[in-house]
């Protein structure tokens, strides 16, 4: 009879084999352990849990829709404000000409900053999704 280590006994039992060894007592205890562990009952789920979660998910959907609507209204107001401002500036172009000539050289800098901010938020969002939410483990 061969002497088997704990690792070897466990590996054989994992594959469904009953190992033959010089320590039948150890093998028997491990066998009983494997059998008992596999027979442990799963946790009890409270009654109505699925309904509760479904109701919560439904509320989440409504909240999300509400958030989109709020965002749409906000954007609409923003566009109206910006449009009014542009119209005002165009109407009084000559009066603001001096001001425009002052900020014109900085327009590419502002544009670059805006693009970098958008790219950063997008990348951060993507990374978060990959790391925590979707099934990309690497």
């Amino acid at each position: 009879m061969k002497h088997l280590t704990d690792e070897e006994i466990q590996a054989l039992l994992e594959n469904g084999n009953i190992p033959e060894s010089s320590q039948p007592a150890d093998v028997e205890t491990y066998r009983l352990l494997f059998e008992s562990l596999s027979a442990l009952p799963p946790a009890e789920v409270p009654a109505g849990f699925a309904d509760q979660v479904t109701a919560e998910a439904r509320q989440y959907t409504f909240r999300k829709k509400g958030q989109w609507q709020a965002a749409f209204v906000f954007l609409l107001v923003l566009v109206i404000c910006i449009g009014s401002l542009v119209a005002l500036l165009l109407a009084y172009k000559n009066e603001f000409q001096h001001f425009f000539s002052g900020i014109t050289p900085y327009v590419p800098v502002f544009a670059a900053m805006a693009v970098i901010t958008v790219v950063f938020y997008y990348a951060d969002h993507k990374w978060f999704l990959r790391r925590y939410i979707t099934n990309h483990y690497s």
Partner: protein
Amino acid sequence: MSEEQQLVEQVLRGDMQAFRQLVKNYEKLVWTVAARLIEQKEEREDLCQEVFIKVYRGLPGFAFESKLSTWIARITYLTAINHLRKDKYKTVSHNQLEDLVLSPAAQDNPGETMEKKSLQAYLNQLIDQMPPAYKTVITLFHLQQCAYDEIVAITGMPAGTVKVYLLRARKLLKEKLETFLKNEQP
């Protein structure tokens, strides 16, 4: 298209009954994993709800690169671990398995403390005293019949670590079981 994919498609189309069915299919898995890591019943219930809301939110990004059960179990594990991190005082480090051998609760004569309880109840108690990582690998392997690669995917631990944790946890349980059986014998 598998039944699982069809169910996901239905959920993505906004069918809440399909989502309810999805919850029904995986609630035992989520509760079994969460029950090992979160002791308080109310906290556990909140956590399980949170897991399924994360599943609902994350489903559009799920690309079936793994089994749905593996993905849901991973969300459960990460959510529970984050919860434990927030309650740091409840967290036990991965190196404290050996403390179980010396802890007063574990040193009690099992024959006396577990006189009226079954072997399964005794094993459950021992597993509950283990550090979170050990509890998780034992639960996933034996209770959920997960393969090694699935446990690696769920926990994010290296394959070698999973094997070592399983080996050490079983060895300890076997030693405890021996004492239990000796005390059970007349």
